Each structure stands twice: as C-alpha cells, then as structure tokens.
C-alpha cells in the first residue's frame, strides 16, 4: 500500500517536470521564431505613486476650498499619469457632484467602481456618492438600489 502511494507521488513529480520542461522548450521555440529576439519591455518601470498622489492631494484641497474647476484640472493631470487609479475617478465624481453635474458624478463613480478591484471601501464610497447624486436628480428608485448595494456590502 505504502509503496504504491510512493510510486503515485513519483508519478506526479515526473508529470510536473515533463510539463515544465515541455513548456520551457515550447517557449524557447516561440522566442527563436520571432524576428526580434529581445523585447525592450524589460526596461519598463512602474510610475512613481507620489506624482499622482501629490496631485490628488492638491485636488482634495481645492475641493475643500470650493475651487471645483481647479480641483478638476488637478485631477485630469493626475489621471493622465495614473489613468487606472479608482480613487482619482471617485474624486472626480465628487467634483462633478459639487459642480451640480449629478449625472456625470454617477458616471465617474461607475468608472471608479470598474477600476476599484476589490477595494470595498472605495466601492462603498462610490455607491454612497451615487445615491446622493441620484437623489439630487430625483431618481429615487435608483438611489434606493445603490443604497441597498451599499448596505449589503457592509
């Protein structure tokens, strides 16, 4: 019995090694086939998180000082540097809400949610703002729906 189990383990190991080596071999073939042997992408460096976050900070300050247009400009700059930062899109939603562009506030929150990955706090912030925007637009049913989503997520 014991011996049988041991053989089974070896078999697993052999299969893994075979798959790995086959994969490496195939990968090597693919690279050799390509006319350009080395890709220049190895040099790609992640952008500094501080560039976008310092602009976000400026935008938040402008928002607090009721300088909405200023905040919008800061956020657009930040989004050029970090276009997939959900927090930036959410803050843009806040700016749009303050500018009384409620429909756009909802849209920016939806965009933020689409990039929020599994950031429940950001998603809840978006639903909260969407509820407020829907209420401003008189769309109570939609407001209630996002409210439910908000409560369910807590």
């Amino acid at each position, binding site marked *: 019995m014991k011996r049988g189990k041991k053989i089974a383990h070896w078999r697993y190991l052999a299969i*893994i090694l075979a*798959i*790995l080596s086959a*994969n490496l071999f195939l990968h090597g073939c*693919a690279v050799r086939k*390509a*006319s*350009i042997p080395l*890709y*220049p*992408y190895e*040099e*790609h*460096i*992640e*952008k*500094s998180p*501080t*560039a976008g976050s*310092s*602009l976000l900070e400026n935008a938040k300050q402008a928002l607090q000082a009721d300088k909405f*247009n*200023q905040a*919008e*400009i*800061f956020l*657009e*700059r930040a*989004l*050029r*540097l970090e*276009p*997939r930062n959900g927090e930036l899109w959410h803050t*843009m939603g806040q700016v749009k809400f303050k500018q009384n562009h409620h429909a*756009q506030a909802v*849209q*920016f929150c*939806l*965009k933020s949610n*689409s*990039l929020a*990955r599994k950031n429940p706090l950001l998603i809840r912030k978006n639903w909260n703002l969407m509820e407020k925007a829907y209420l401003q637009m008189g769309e109570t049913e939609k407001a209630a729906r996002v409210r439910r989503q908000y409560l369910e997520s807590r």
Partner: protein
Amino acid sequence: MVNRKQRNAIKQTVKNRKMRPFSFRKVCILLLLVFFVVFAIYVKHLDRIIRQKFEGKRWSLPAVVYARPLELYPGLSLSPTELEKELQLAGYRSESLVADPGGYDRDGDLMQLVTRNFYFSEGLQKSVNLTVQFAGARIESITRADSRQSLSLARLDPARIGSFHPRHHEDRIVLTRKELPDLLINTLLAVEDQNFYAHFGLSPRGIARALLANIRAGETVQGGSTLSQQLVKNFFLSNKRTLQRKFNEAIMTLLLEFYYSKDEILTAYTNEIFLGQDGARAVHGFGLASQFYFRRDLENLTASQIALLVGMVKGPSYYNPLKYPDRCLARRKLVLDIMFSRKVIDEEVYQQAGAVSIETSGETISGFNRFPAFLDLVRRQLRRNYLEEDLTTDGLKIMTTLDPQVQWQVEKNLTETIDGLEKRTGVSQIEGAVIISSREGGEILAIAGSRKPLQSGFNRALDARRPIGSLIKPTVYLTAIANGSTLASPVLDSSLTIDDGKGEIWSPKNFDGKEHGLVPLYVALAQSYNQATVKIGMDVGLKKVLQTIRDLGIDIDFPAYPSLLLGAAAMVPLEVSQMFQTLAAGGFYVPQRVIGSVLSSDNKVLKRFGLSVEQRFTPESIYLLNTALQLGVREGTGKSLFHYIPPSHNVAGKTGTSNDFRDSWFAGFTGDKLAVVWLGRDDNKPTGLTGASGALTVWGKLMQSLHAEPLELLEPPGIEWAWLDPETLEISDHFHYKKIKLPFIAGSIPSQAKVTPSPALGKKQKGSGILDRIRDWFSLRKEAGEH
C-alpha cells in the same frame, strides 16, 4: 402802390447788385473757409482711423497652438536624448551655464534646465531651475537647483507647435510697457529718436539735421522720422514716398501724439515693428524677434543681442544675422558705439558686447506648424466653437493633447514600414494613417495623415472613408454577448445565402475559402470567420448591431444591409478610433479630444474641453469581448503581433481587410494606449496587404517603440470561469491541455459544468500561467478524489 417805372428801377438795382463782383478778400475768406471745412472733415477722417485702430484691436494675433506639457517625475520612462529633443522643440537653448529661463545643459545622464513662465488653465506656473538625473532611459530624480529640494513632479512649459494665421501671416508676441527692458528702450531711443520724450510727434530739428546730412552725402543716408512717424507709417500707411502720404503721416502723427501718451506710442512701436521673415511668417515686434533669433525672452537679452535687434530696425532683411552676419555685425558695432557714446552702457559692457560674435539660436527643431495632420483636427474642432476670424485675430492660446514623443514615433514607424512593405511587395503608392490615443482618457496623442508627415494635403486620418472590413466584427459579437451569447456558444460556420437587402442573393465566403463547421463564438471572432459572423449578426438582428455601433460613439446611420456585418460600411480612421476607444475604456464612452482648453490672449480660460465618461455597456459584456479580442491576437488573425510585442502583454486587437486587399486595418489597445492604423492606396487599387501583413506591422513596431504597457483586463464582479474544449465544445470544470479557460457572465455557464477559480485570483495569490494550470489540475483532481 408802386408804379411800373419804380418797379423796373428796383429790379435794375437788384440786378446791378447781383452782378457786382466779390472783392478779392471775400473770395480768399470763402476759399479758406472751404479749405478749413474740407481739411476738418479730412482730419476727422484720419482721426477716426487712428482712434479705431488704437482703441480697438491693434493687431490681428494668430491663435497659438501648444503641445501637451511634459510632466517629469521619477520613474518616467524617458531618455535624456528624448528630453533634449522635446526641449529643442519647445525652443530651449543648449548652453553651458544655464541661468535664464529657456536654457538647458546636458552632461551625460544629468540635465540642468530652467523652465519658462507659462500660463496654464489654473494660472501662472513660474520658472524653475531643475536638475534631472537619469538612470538609463528613465528619470531617477528631479531636484530644484536653488533649494536642492527633491520633487515628485515637475511640469515643463509646452512646445508651441503652430498657429492659425490670417492671410498676411503676421505674427508677434505682444508685450506691455512694463515688460519692455529699459536697455532696449534706451537703445532704441538713442539710435532712432533721441528727442522722443521732448517732441510733439514731428521733429523739425531732426528733419533739418537729416536734410543736411543727405545734401552733404548726395543721397538719403539719414531719416528724419520720429518713432511716432515710423509707427504711423507702419501702422496706417503704405511705403510709397508720395506727398499725400507725407501729409497724412504728419497729420496722423500729430493726432496720435495728441490722444496717446508717449509710453503707449513707444509700446505700440516695439510691438509693431517688422524684424524679419520666418518662412511664410512675418516676425513682428521685439518680443517675437527675441524668441525667433535667440530663443530667449526679451528680458533676458544681453547688450549685444539688444544692439543687434535695434540695428535690424533699419532693414531687417538687409541686416539679417542668419543670412548676412558680416553686415549685421557692422551694424551692431555702430549701434553699440551709439549706446556707449550716449551712455546707455558703460565701457565694460561696451567692450564685452563688442567682443561677442554674432549669436543666434543655433540648431533647433522647428515645431512651427510641424504636425499638419494634428493641427488640422485641432482647427476642425475649434471651428465648432469659434469663427475663423476669431482664430486668426484674437491671439487665442490652444492647449492640445499632442504628445511629440508619440508623434515622432508614429511618423517614423509609418514611413519606414510603408517603405519596407513597398520594397517587399513591389506595390507602390501605398499610403497610410495612424491615430493613437490614451486608453482611458481618450486624449489623442498623435495623428499621421500621410506617410509623409510634413505633407499638409489630404488628411487620411480624418478624411479617408474606406470599408473597415473585419474591424466591424467586434460590434457584432458584442451585440451577441449583450443578448445572451457566451464566448463558448456554438456557432455554425458554413455557407449561407441570404437576401442582401437590395433584392439580390448574397453568399459570403471565408477568407480561406473553407467552412469550419461548429466553432465556439470566441474562435469565430479570433479567426475572423465571415460565415459564422454573418450567422451571429443575422440571428441577433441588424438593428441591434447598428445600435451597438451608435453606442460605441459612431453617429452614422448605416443602411441595415447584411454586408454591414462584414465591414462593407465605410468609416474614416478617426471614427474607427472612437469606436475602439469605448471598448478600450471598458465600455465607457469617452469622447476623443485633441484640445484641453482655450485661453484668451490675456490668459483667461475661455473654454475647457474636460473629461467626461458615460457607461454604454455592462462591464461583463465588455470584459468578455475584450478577452476574445485578446485571444484573437494570441491565437487568431493577430498572432504575428508577437514578432514585435511579447505575448505577456495580452494586447487586444482586430485585423481588418477589405475586398480585393484594398484596405489594410489594425485596431488595438495595450495597457495605456489605443491605436488605429490604416494602409491603402488613394486610387483605391489593391495593395495585396491583409490587415495582418500591412497595418498590423506598423502597429506592432509603433507600440514596441513606445514601450507600451501590458494590458490587464480588470475582472468585474459578475464573472465566472469554466473550461471549454474548443473541439467538442464541451464546457466542464476539468482541465485538459486542449481546453481553454473562458470567462462567462454569472449564471450563463451550463448547469452540468462547475465554476472554476478566476485566473486573476490565481495570478494574485498563487502565480500564473502553467503553474496556475497545474495547481488547478491538482485542485480538481483533489476535489474529484474527495467525491
């Protein structure tokens, strides 16, 4: 009663009185009176001309177009050479000791530069002295040279890339009196009009002196005109030497002096004066001349440079430093002598300035109207909000989204690749167009409207309306997915005959002429099967497909013919780009933009073209479609992209070929950019190129040179995964090397199959690729064992 005799006598007296001639004195008075009335009317007429010009818009200022400002931050992928090229485009000077704005000094991987003041939408950004340290082809650090403070972000003032001129092509930078340096004013007055502040517009002493000098010389060697007279001549009158013009000049000068202060006149003069020619553009005013000849702001000019410019007033073409340096040097020496003799400069400055050789801006990259295809789109978009006259006269500042670094790469790759394709295929006259934009923001970064980037004629990116072939297919599949299909849905790829909507029978064929039978939906898209696509499109309904096209941002009413499903519909590359923008941005419609904002000549924001988004498709449908587009590149018609971009970049894209190889298209996106490429001939003859053998190669080389980021699709919450066997079309929860793991909209996986973990989850927690597969396999075996 008066008798007849008396009446006759009275008549005679009146007659005699009438016939008596006027006295000479009275005639003179009358003539004088008439002269004065006519003169007064004439003066009033001249007066109106002067006041209209001076109190209204003095100059027609062209709208100036700027590129996007370059944002520098540690980690940015940018080489010192690329930065240097951008600085040169923005008119920066290369110099060894950088002190003034607009200068830079490169020492290997270290760059010292001083930015220039610039008014952005949010206000003035002041000049700053920066030290940029590079590590290879990226920025390592940025520090302020003055305080040694390390910066996380620094924005450069943008390059001026063009302007919209009125017909006569005058250009100038208008400066106020305060912005004119004292040295310039003192030199100008010393050379041109010593008594400017003392005379009343005309200078009899000056005229007498000039007359004497001219008589002595036997020719015109000296002018007696004051600055005010010169201004009147330049502003209102022609160059003809007639008595009437001289008369008008004198009257208008007196009027000008009567109404306006000396400083106002002086300022107008410095802005009006013609100082050279830059191709078709006339350089007016000291502000622009300083930029044109020295790439410096006027306030930063040295004594020798000011002497050179003031010397050019006498004859800008004759003393042109670029063409006639010797003449210009002699003239500059004369001006410096006057400056010294009239104590404008001291001896030390005089000696130093005299010793300097003729300085001009040296080698620069002229960005002036350098990108005609992009400027064309800017102009078209502006015309929606502004009249043509506003664009050529109001001095508007147009802040655009053009990224010169991307534009240069677009031009280079398009030209080189077409040259190569022509050599390889023997087909000539292939043309091309490229539009590239930011993936999320929809900002158009670069446009090529021709393989010859400087050609400003037919802009193919905006005007070449051609059948888009298979580029239409994503809209068909997106419609099907939104209406309940999955990527695994079986589709029959076999011959079919349908009514073409025009009363004829239509039997579409596949590109390879074969029929592929029952295939999963994603394979039909990845392999671009025509018959399967028509089947899917007809099943879901043409109306729905047309609505999808509209929702993607295309405002065209295509006729609802079945041939639409294979791309018979003609579109321009810009429209295709907008359509794919909505896919790239995750189903959010983002209007593509080339203009960020428009500022007035006094830097007030007139209009902003801000970012806006609108969700047009569910995140789940878009996720499925984009996954299929990735598979199309990985194992379908876009497979050859791997020659340029590694498979790990997971590019999503689609090839397109129109009938008889007339049009070759590729549209696709990476993690950060979307690009659409079209190749074809203007006479619509076949090129022999498919989407993959033509446009895709341009796209691949372009994205390779731009170091495009990998594409990672974010999985929305309502997605589940299962394994599909593409041959048997069986969906299961079991791994097999022939199977493929596909995403499904939650609830659409057939009940007999089990949901398997998302590969994204696996990637994050346990690794990816083959290891992920092995892990899944083991976990499934384990689960199976437990049951």
